[in-house]
């Protein structure tokens, strides 16, 4: 008997994660660990953890991980990459981290076109603190701070941060994917691979937004949360390629 789905080398074995049942973080962690192994980058990988549910990601990864202040992931990633360009720097952030408190850092690091990868987990709520409304929450979405649903007159509209940064000339690769189905998981892996290759070739900033289920704070079971992504969330956040300037950048570099 031969094991087909081998345990990724850079994912710690025999550790039970603290994530809730059905959380998308576990899937994306596995994808990141698998890709680092497949692309032989684990020895120089340097992951910047956010404040949020993934704050304890260093318990599950078996490579260098640093913790950042809330929202400052891309600032720390910038420093790490500039100080040691040989590092392979990934900033792993949630929506409360990247698109709320960290908007300035995100926009300016993208505008500078730093040669880093950003993995952006969008679950439309603040997960760790108990399901408060995030800038990415959908109109009408019920959260603990908007029990009657998000009202655009009071709370504004969902923030499409990936679409915003995709317009910048420094952003080489931006894609939105979801982990709500096996097909989506495969697309996510492909997108993150493309982002990793962008950094490996030294082309510039790459960001992958992953629509991820949060069954606990959405008050749904995990299967329903996946359906909710496919039916409701994709209407606001349309999955697909947002920008791909890799060919131009390759030509520029010669």
């Amino acid at each position: 008997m031969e094991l087909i789905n081998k345990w990724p080398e850079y994912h710690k074995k025999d550790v039970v994660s603290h994530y809730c049942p059905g959380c998308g973080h576990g899937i994306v962690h596995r994808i990141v660990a698998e890709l680092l192994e497949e692309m032989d980058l684990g020895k120089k990988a340097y992951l910047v953890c956010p404040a949020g549910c993934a704050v304890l990601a260093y318990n599950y990864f078996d490579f260098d991980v640093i913790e950042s202040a809330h929202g400052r992931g891309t600032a720390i990633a910038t420093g790490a990459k500039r100080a040691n360009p040989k590092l392979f720097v990934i900033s792993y952030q949630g929506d409360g981290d990247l698109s709320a408190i960290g908007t300035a850092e995100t926009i300016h690091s993208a505008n500078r076109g730093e040669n880093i990868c950003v993995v952006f987990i969008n679950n439309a709520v603040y997960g760790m603190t108990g399901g408060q409304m995030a800038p990415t929450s959908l109109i009408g979405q019920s959260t603990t701070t908007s029990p009657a649903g998000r009202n655009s007159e009071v709370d504004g509209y969902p923030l499409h941060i990936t679409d915003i940064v995709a317009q910048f000339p420094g952003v080489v690769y931006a894609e939105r994917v979801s982990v709500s189905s096996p097909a989506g998981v495969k697309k996510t892996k492909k997108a993150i691979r493309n982002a990793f290759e962008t950094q490996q070739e030294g082309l510039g900033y790459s960001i992958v937004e992953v629509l991820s289920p949060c069954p606990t704070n959405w008050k749904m079971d995990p299967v329903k949360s996946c359906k909710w992504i496919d039916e409701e969330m994709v209407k606001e956040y349309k999955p697909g390629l947002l920008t791909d300037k890799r060919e131009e950048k390759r030509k520029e570099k010669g």
Partner: protein
Amino acid sequence: MSKKDKVFTVKVRRDFCKGCGLCIEFCKKEVLASSSKLNRMGYNPAEVVKPEACVGCLMCTQMCPDLAIEVYSG
């Protein structure tokens, strides 16, 4: 041996499964089902009910957030 004749064995690591049910939902061959017994963490983990039906598509391992499923060939 053609792919059709291949035999696959699915194993669920009981104490790592949080019983989210994503593998059960996305397994087209209904190999997995929710167990009635609780595991160490107090969840109802997935268990293999139709081992012979597995075709090794790895949909369950793609969706499992806790890396709790192992699929063996042969």
